[in-house]
């Protein structure tokens, strides 16, 4: 081989390749005929195609986290050091034990597994283990991906998919018309069909013309992406394009992603996606050495590889003849051209008759191999049979326009009886198909059509020089009657003509049933080569034309697409958003243990060296009861509501009275959903005559923001009110404990506000808002400051707190304190299924209604207390810890009456307490129950009690 510049390995053996060769081309070049084993029967398989439609030549490329199993050898370009391995073989590609399945193939026809392996599920699982191991193609990956993927949006007036002659002409025209143009091509070079044909356009060779066209498009401002496949066509003329920046298994350039997913929003989409050649169905049509005719041409002309020395060409159309000429020109012997037509009549056939043995009404029906490679073609010629010695059979059963994207976009297909093919019909979005994808076959006509589509109708001629001339592209789709042995239709899934016949006999007659029963078209090639032959066979069995037999759906992606490309940068630590507190560093400095709360990370506690989380949180909670503590509550939802109608808006959202609140005062409140159950709770503060601050839970912040906006804009657009979400703007630190008022006064130089009063003050030079609200049961204050000034406030408070014997506390301590005080929390006690009455807040609701949810909560089963789960307290009888989440039962084995929503150690005392939702709970006061956790093997006796365990009179709130 000349010009070799690269080396690669296949199954451990080193080979040479030329730049620009696909792995398939390089393997053929090196005489490697058997590349893979088939899915079910483990038959030896070679390379059949030259593009993404390849069903058989699947290999694993790359190593470790870069390994890409099931890579089509036809769709990876050789790079220096490429490592490829055969797959689904044991012990080796040449001798594969799994091939025994082929011998037993009569026992395992399509759907055999539905008819056997009965018995209990566990027994099926025993058989299934063997089936699972035998199934699967490539090896399972085990490592994380070392590389990255990228997402990028793009907008254009015209997206052209495919840089063959039609696509290039269209993109050229659109660029010259001043449009924003994008051209994407899955191959590594432009040209499409031009790369395999001996033609000249405007005086230059095809590949050169294509390269010049790309340069012109780029010079005109167009964006041309190579190695970029349009995989999905979605609503709104959005096309996903996956661009390979590195080949499968290849180490990308430094810091560069391996693939980029382009999300292209298009004014118009021109689909120049070409056509795929159909194989012929005959016995042993899967042997290495049997290839698609156009693929053979591509290997000969583009890759400089002649895949056989003695070739038979079998065709149903004129195009196949071009392969005979290409092979002969490259020095191969063309043994015969088998033309299934009885009397083909065209210039190319006439030319061929002068050079080759052209046999008409002739078709292959069976093959023989020497070793594993094709050696003999058995052909039916007229009424007789001929045996032809050949190591290459180039076949062409006609062409299937690539209408996948057209169909994905909602377009329908029309049946072209002359071409025996489905072609794009009516489009639903702003799209058009051009070139071979639209059933075109004459190069000059394709170029003119492409230009017209790109220019918006302006014509232009191209001078095409094609010595062979284009004839009729396709004959009838062949459904041979005389096929012997295994005639494969779906090569990858080993579906044969007899499988299709069996499915028909058993009543799986809808094309979708056929597909699902036989697994036809369900392989990684998505039936690109096989579906039409199967459809023809089905139509024949039904006695109808192909269009009446139906068509399966085309689903994205057009070619198999790497999952990493869909995920983009959202992997690893970045797999989900992270919301960071303004005080993150301050907490970290104090040794915070972090806890995820939605997307936030909040301090759970600040354990000392050697201290457990439980001990730390109890210490912190006791610190609050004894002196004071401070906790970051910046994640609370906060809204400023201003204007003359502010109270009116708040009374729509809140089920409690707001309007009578005096300036400088606040009140606890609760919000319901429209179904009358509790959505959230919080506090409302009147900061000024026409200005309120509403707080609500961290977890419900986004929901509350949407809800308030809904009320303001849709339900009450006439109100004079402004609702501003200030959750991000206002950070907050809560200060709680018997020392809190004194410490705060010391820092502000003013008396701390009384319970449920608010005031403004200056603290550490920062204007702050102080709300006197308590969640812990102690005298407590929430100090609000703009986020960028919060650190100064925190530092001042922390310094003073430490001096007073206090310090920071985390979420666990906060939880212990609130449980002891009987406060509910959204997400635990308020689980989306409780009413205000259930949690003891029924008395707060406005009797007059007028708030969201007032109607819903009057429904019978909500308004009737009997049988509802109600909030209660639990005291553990004995010294055990109370398991959160445990079921409450009268005795083990009984159905649960309720469950422990939150459990906590007593802060002001010993032992464990908890809150619970308990069926008819309030009537069970004093009852002994069992908190039973079967999954944790815990049984803790508890007594039902009032949910407030600490300072029931609220004396500690007041000074």
């Amino acid at each position, binding site marked *: 081989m000349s010009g070799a510049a690269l080396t690669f390995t296949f199954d451990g053996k080193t080979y040479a390749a030329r730049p620009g060769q696909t792995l398939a081309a390089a393997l053929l070049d090196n005489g490697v005929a058997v590349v893979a084993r088939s899915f079910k029967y483990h038959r030896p398989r070679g390379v059949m195609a030259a593009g993404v439609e390849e069903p058989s030549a699947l290999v694993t490329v790359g190593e470790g986290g870069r390994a890409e199993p099931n890579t089509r050898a036809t769709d990876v370009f050789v790079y220096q050091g490429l490592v490829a391995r055969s797959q689904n073989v044991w012990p080796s590609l040449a001798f594969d034990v799994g091939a025994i399945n082929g011998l037993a193939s009569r026992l395992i026809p399509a759907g055999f597994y539905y008819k056997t392996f009965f018995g209990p599920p566990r027994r099926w699982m025993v058989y299934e283990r063997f089936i699972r191991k035998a199934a699967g193609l490539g090896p399972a990956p085990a490592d994380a991906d070392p590389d990255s993927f990228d997402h990028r949006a793009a907008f254009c007036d015209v997206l052209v998919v495919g840089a063959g002659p039609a696509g290039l002409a269209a993109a050229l025209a659109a660029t010259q018309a001043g449009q924003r143009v994008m051209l994407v091509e899955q191959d590594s070079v432009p040209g499409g069909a031009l790369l395999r044909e001996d033609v000249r356009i405007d005086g230059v060779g095809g590949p050169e013309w294509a390269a010049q066209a790309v340069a012109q498009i780029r010079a005109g401002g167009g964006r041309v992406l190579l190695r970029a496949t349009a995989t999905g066509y*979605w*609503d*709104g*003329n*959005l096309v996903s394009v996956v661009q390979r920046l590195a080949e499968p298994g290849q180490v990308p350039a430094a810091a560069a992603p391996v693939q980029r997913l382009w999300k292209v*929003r298009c004014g118009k989409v021109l689909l120049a996606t070409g056509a795929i050649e159909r194989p012929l169905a005959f016995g042993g049509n899967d042997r290495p050495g049997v290839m698609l005719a156009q693929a053979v041409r591509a290997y000969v002309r583009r890759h400089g590889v002649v895949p056989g020395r003695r070739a038979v060409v079998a065709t149903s159309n004129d195009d196949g003849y071009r392969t005979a000429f290409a092979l002969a020109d490259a020095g191969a012997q063309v043994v015969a051209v088998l033309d299934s037509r009885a009397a083909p009549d065209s210039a190319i056939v006439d030319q061929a008759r002068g050079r080759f043995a052209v046999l008409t009404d002739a078709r292959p029906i069976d093959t023989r191999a020497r070793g594993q490679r094709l050696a003999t073609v058995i052909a039916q010629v007229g009424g007789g049979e001929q045996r032809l010695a050949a190591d290459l059979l180039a076949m062409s059963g006609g062409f299937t326009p690539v209408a996948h994207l057209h169909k994905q976009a*909602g377009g329908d297909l029309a049946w072209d009886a002359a071409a025996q093919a489905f072609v794009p019909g009516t489009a*639903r979005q702003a799209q058009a198909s051009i070139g071979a994808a639209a059933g075109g076959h004459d190069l000059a006509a394709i170029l003119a059509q492409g230009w017209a589509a790109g220019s918006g109708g302006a014509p232009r001629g191209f001078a095409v020089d094609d010595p062979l001339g284009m004839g009729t592209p396709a004959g009838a789709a062949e459904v041979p009657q005389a096929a012997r042995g295994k005639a494969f239709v779906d090569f990858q899934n080993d579906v044969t003509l007899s499988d299709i016949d069996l499915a028909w006999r058993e009543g799986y007659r809808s094309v979708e049933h056929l597909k699902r029963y036989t697994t036809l078209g369900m392989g990684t090639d998505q039936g690109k080569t096989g579906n039409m032959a199967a459809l023809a066979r089905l139509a024949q069995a039904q006695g109808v034309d192909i269009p009446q037999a139906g068509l399966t759906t085309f689903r994205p992606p057009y070619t198999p697409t790497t999952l990493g490309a869909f995920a983009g940068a959202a992997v690893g630590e970045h797999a989900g958003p992270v919301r960071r507190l303004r005080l993150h560093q301050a907490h970290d400095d104090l040794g915070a243990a972090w806890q995820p709360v939605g997307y936030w990370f909040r301090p759970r506690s600040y354990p000392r060296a050697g201290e457990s989380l439980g001990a730390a949180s109890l210490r912190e909670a006791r610190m609050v009861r004894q002196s004071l503590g401070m906790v970051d509550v910046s994640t609370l939802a906060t809204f400023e509501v201003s204007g003359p109608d502010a109270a009116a808006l708040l009374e*729509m959202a809140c089920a409690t009275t707001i309007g009578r609140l005096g300036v400088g005062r606040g009140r606890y409140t609760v919000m319901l959903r*429209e*179904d009358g159950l509790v959505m959230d709770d919080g506090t409302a503060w009147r900061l000024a005559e026409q200005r309120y601050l509403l707080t609500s839970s961290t977890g419900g912040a986004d929901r509350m923001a*949407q809800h308030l*906006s*809904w009320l303001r*804009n*849709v*339900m009450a*657009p*006439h109100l004079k009110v402004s609702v501003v979400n200030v959750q991000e703007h206002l950070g907050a630190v809560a200060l709680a404990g018997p020392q809190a008022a004194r410490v705060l006064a010391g820092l502000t130089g003013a008396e701390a506000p009384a319970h449920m009063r608010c005031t403004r003050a200056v603290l550490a030079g920062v204007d702050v808002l102080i709300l006197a609200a308590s969640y812990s049961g102690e005298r407590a204050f929430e100090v609000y400051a703009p986020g960028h000034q919060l650190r100064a406030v925190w530092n001042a408070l922390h310094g003073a707190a430490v001096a007073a014997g206090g310090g920071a506390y985390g979420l666990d301590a906060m939880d212990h304190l609130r449980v002891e005080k009987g406060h509910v929390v959204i997400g635990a006690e308020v689980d989306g299924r409780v009413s205000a009455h259930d949690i003891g807040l029924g008395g707060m609701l406005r009797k007059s*209604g*007028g*708030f*969201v949810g*007032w*109607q*819903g909560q*009057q*429904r019978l089963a909500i308004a009737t207390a009997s049988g509802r789960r109600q909030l209660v307290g639990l005291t553990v009888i004995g010294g055990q810890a109370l398991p959160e989440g445990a079921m409450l039962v009268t005795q083990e084995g009984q159905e649960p009456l309720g469950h422990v929503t939150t459990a906590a150690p007593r802060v002001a005392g010993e032992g464990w307490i908890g809150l619970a939702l308990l069926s008819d709970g309030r009537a069970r006061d004093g009852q002994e129950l069992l908190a039973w956790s079967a999954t944790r093997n815990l049984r803790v006796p508890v007594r039902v009690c009032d949910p407030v365990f600490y300072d029931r009179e609220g004396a500690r709130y007041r000074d």
Partner: protein
Amino acid sequence: MMLIDCPHCGPRAQEEFTYERTRDSVVPLDAAPAAAMATLYARANPRGEEDEIWRHTLGCRGWLELRRHRMTHAIVAVRPLGPAVLP
């Protein structure tokens, strides 16, 4: 992904929008309880066009009403909801 013609921002990607509910399921706060629940829960759910309320949540945050086909996803009309707006 649909392209939604926001009355304030022009055509924008669907990712910026959130669906809220059908126009006919807006529950007036003064509706009687039984009528309110019927409005909330009984949906026509047609295999055709329906008036829907959406929000440009990750854009201008404005509310809009779409008439949208539930098979083709074609949007046949858009109008803004909310208070009067300065041009």
